[in-house]
């Protein structure tokens, strides 16, 4: 839950951060675009979000087919 929630929160916040900064967020002069790019891989690596959900639902007693 911690891995999934943390990484997806980072992805969502960096996306919103881009929006708040408008055109500047898209420029390499600012760090926000880097956060946006970095966060994108963190929801995939070290067990994707989908794998985390599989682990959680298995722990809730639901069989994985």
């Amino acid at each position: 839950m911690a891995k999934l929630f943390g990484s997806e929160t980072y992805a969502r916040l960096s996306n919103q951060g881009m929006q708040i900064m408008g055109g500047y967020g898209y420029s390499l002069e600012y760090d926000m675009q880097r956060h946006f790019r970095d966060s994108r891989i963190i929801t995939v690596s070290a067990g994707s979000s989908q794998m985390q959900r599989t682990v959680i639902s298995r722990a809730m007693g639901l069989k994985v087919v």
Partner: protein
Amino acid sequence: MIHFTEEQKMMQEMVRKLVKDKVAPRAAEIDETDEFPWDIAKVFGENGLLNLVLPEEYGGVNANNTTLCIVIEEIAKVSPACGLTVFTTQALLNVLVRGGNEEQKNRFFPKFASADKICAFVLTEPNSGSDAASIQTKAILDGDSYVFNGNKIFISTGEVSDFYLVFAMTRPGEGAKGMSAFIVEKGIPGFSFGKKENKMGLRGNPTVELIFEDARVPKENLLGEEGRGWKMLTEYGNLMRTWGAASTSLGIAEGALEYATGYARERIQFGRPIGSFQAIQFMLADMAILTEAARSLIYRASWMIDQGTESSSKIEPMVSMAKCFTTDTAMKVTTDAVQILGGYGYTKDYPLERMMRDAKGVQIFDGTNQIQRVIISRNLLGKF
């Protein structure tokens, strides 16, 4: 992060058993009839749940913030409406314990030793909801008493309560600086009840209009000094949101998640339990993540409050985050739980539609989630 004392674990276990035996079988009926459950209030009283914050000699356990969170969460798992009785009663007692003088404590506490008294928290008016400093109910000193005039609405546990914590203007027109807090007893001349709201959810806890027409309240019932009302509201009242709306909605989310998980294990479609389908598994996993995150947030905020060392500027946004996040979580979790039960979830034969209606109410009361976001962003950005 979440560490409960032995006493708190025992309290949690006691309340869990009590509500399973006494409240759960009545929850649907309480919602259906919208009648205040006196039998449940009596059971709560007998088990010490109405006096929690009082000192031991008056039947209490000196409950701290976390203990109150634990109790409300457990009750709300089966009936948030019943949890409200404990919430509003502890809300008044909590302010009395912290903001009352010795004479007031000596006078009021023994009245609660019988453990059958219930209380209400009275702030909202027809023209003052989120903008609480704009209340218009007047309390003007005249001889030995304050003369009350004005109307209050949306008062939870109204009419059935014995004591009311009422916020009124001792200096009308001066906003927050002119606000004071009083304990008002039921039955004084000029204090009556008006419309009872017919609510979508949280049914069984009456939401009632209070009418003051030249009602005389003894001047000894003023809490603290004149003009201290706003400070009491922000210092004590805001913190109550952790064990008020936040714990209530955490209980709702947990109740809904547990029910939907059990259903997903049992319900067979296409020759296998629907819980074996990834579409359902991922919905339940997301519901569990949000619920656990909400629990962490509430008990972290509560821990900060109980430590008593953190500044209010650190605690205030944490409390608002806990209220906002948990109530939004309860709304999402209950909505998805109804979805998992499908057509059955939409009927009153199952508890989930009630939980969903209850969740909506908690997003609104105890400071709307929009107001919580105002508080959070003001702490990030400062005032403009």
